[in-house]
């Protein structure tokens, strides 16, 4: 037995070669077996539906009769003659442009304070993270509606200093800002990512800078911010995409209407109304694809621009 094993390297190789296709076929089969649930989901629930919705976006479809091919009419209407689409774009972009920078500024500011080696860091971090964790709940939107209502918590507080506040929610000029405030309130999760990034920056870089006489603000602009750009980049991309997709707060605060007078008509809320209130499935599919293009363009621009401001050599 031992002899045959020892003097048979050549035949073993031949054996392995003969078996190689079979074992690799078996390995492949095992691999695909493990992957089977995902593959079914990918074809059945992701790729297939995405293609179908691309097709539907060129049709008129109300779920009852068969889809009717209308060519690019849906897209033409989106681009030229849909005031609701313009309103939704305006609201959504304003929301993204206001909420993302504010949220990230708070996240970075607090992360830097926490990174100073204070006692009680875990407690602070937990408190600041909590709103991010529960922020998507309907309950939080309900609470927000009360806080910013005419007789709500905010106005009660303002009354103490003698200011008579308006009803922030039902005023079209301020309604969107209450949603921005809700987004900024949830700065905890980007804060945690910033904090993890800040801890990667070696302490001796700051010590060297201090010896060279760099001021606090110089240290921030020349060391902290450049070394943090990969994390900043990640946070900007993730938070922006999330902001484009925001739905629940606008739905709850406006009672599903996007009101007052479309002031909180988020893009996804408009899409929901078209699809599930008016059953214009073709038009809603076109809206979905426009959203994909917007997000894709934004992501591509971020990645293209990243070579100019993101430092990966840190």
């Amino acid at each position, binding site marked *: 037995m031992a002899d045959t094993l020892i003097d048979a390297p050549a035949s073993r190789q031949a054996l392995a070669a003969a078996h190689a296709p079979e074992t690799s076929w078996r390995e*492949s089969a095992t691999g695909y077996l493990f992957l089977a649930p995902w593959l079914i*989901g990918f074809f059945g629930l992701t790729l297939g539906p995405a293609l179908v919705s691309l097709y539907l976006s060129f049709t008129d479809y109300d779920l009852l009769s068969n889809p009717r091919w209308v060519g690019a009419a849906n897209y033409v209407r989106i681009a030229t003659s849909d005031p609701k689409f313009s309103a939704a774009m305006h609201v959504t972009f304003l929301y993204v442009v206001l909420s993302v920078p504010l949220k990230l500024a708070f996240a970075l500011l607090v992360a830097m304070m926490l990174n100073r080696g204070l006692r009680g860091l875990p407690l*602070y971090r937990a408190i600041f993270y909590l709103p991010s964790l529960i922020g998507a709940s309907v309950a939080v939107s309900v609470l927000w509606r009360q806080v910013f209502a005419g007789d709500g918590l905010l106005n009660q507080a303002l009354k103490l200093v003698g200011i008579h506040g308006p009803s922030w929610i039902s005023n079209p000029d301020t309604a969107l800002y209450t949603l921005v405030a809700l987004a900024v309130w949830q700065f905890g999760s980007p804060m945690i990512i910033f904090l993890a990034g800040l*801890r990667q920056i070696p302490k001796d870089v*700051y010590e060297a800078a201090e010896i060279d006489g760099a001021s606090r603000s110089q240290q921030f602009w020349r060391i902290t911010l450049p070394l943090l750009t990969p994390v900043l980049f990640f946070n900007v991309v993730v938070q922006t995409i999330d902001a484009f997709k925001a739905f*629940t707060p606008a739905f709850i605060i406006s009672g599903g209407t996007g009101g007052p007078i479309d002031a909180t008509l988020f893009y996804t809320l408009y899409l929901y109304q078209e699809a599930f209130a008016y059953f214009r499935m073709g038009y809603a599919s076109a809206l979905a694809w426009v959203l994909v293009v917007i997000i894709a363009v934004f992501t591509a621009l971020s990645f293209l621009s990243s070579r100019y401001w993101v430092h990966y050599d840190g």
Partner: protein
Amino acid sequence: MVDLGTSDEISPPRDGRRHALLYHVVLCLASIAMLYPLLWMLASSFKPDSDIFGDASLWPRHFSLAAYWRGWSGLQVTFGKFFLNSLVVSLCSVVGNVMSCSLAAYAFARLKFRGQKFWFALMLGTLMLPYHVTLIPQYILFLNLDWVDTFLPLIVPKFLAVDAFFIFLLVQFFRSIPRELDEAAMIDGCGPWRIYWIVILPLSIPALATAAIFTFIWTWDDFFGPLIYLNDMNSYTVQLGLRSFVDSTGKSDWGALFAMSTLTLLPLFVFFLFFQRLLIDGIATMG
């Protein structure tokens, strides 16, 4: 991208004591400002209705559970039913996600098969795809399968690893497990299934727990899915129940509304208290 830099060791303070005190004051004030609305909601849920308005205090003058009783059976279906529904949907989603995502992650991280890189790239691609493009055809599909008003449209996708994010999370973790362990098991005669079951899964408990907790929280919080697929109040989840309650009470019964809001947040607080570390490390690794 970012290593787990979340250990709690305290680096030597670079600031003087006075600075530290200043930071503590600022951070304490910020914490209070952030938590105030939540604490006020909690306090208000115990106040008699007449005390909620014009009373911004965090301590009810008169304790009362009346709002909870009113809210619990404020709709034709009680909140007990909503909680049960949410629990069923969330727990099934957890099981589905952990199973299907760990299977796929094992295939990507440990096995070798033809087309592996191709599928992995596609899987990463789905991370970027907004769910809105699959929404309408999925709805049509589930409508034709007669699954509307059942929990199946909310649960079945979880068993098919549609949340690619968790696959990615688990792939990263599985890759950090030393290969020598697989090889040792293989020498002992284990095939890939047994290696997956007795080597990889037990060593990945922290990652699996993170995936499980996030799945639970996100499913519990999900509003959009139930809104589309559940029309019958008997099948409502807590989020839908709460929304109906808002619509039916309007502004008339804030006490009951706050009481039920507090209850729907309760499971999230429990997770937060017990698994804070896993949650925070999870967020930090996502970077």
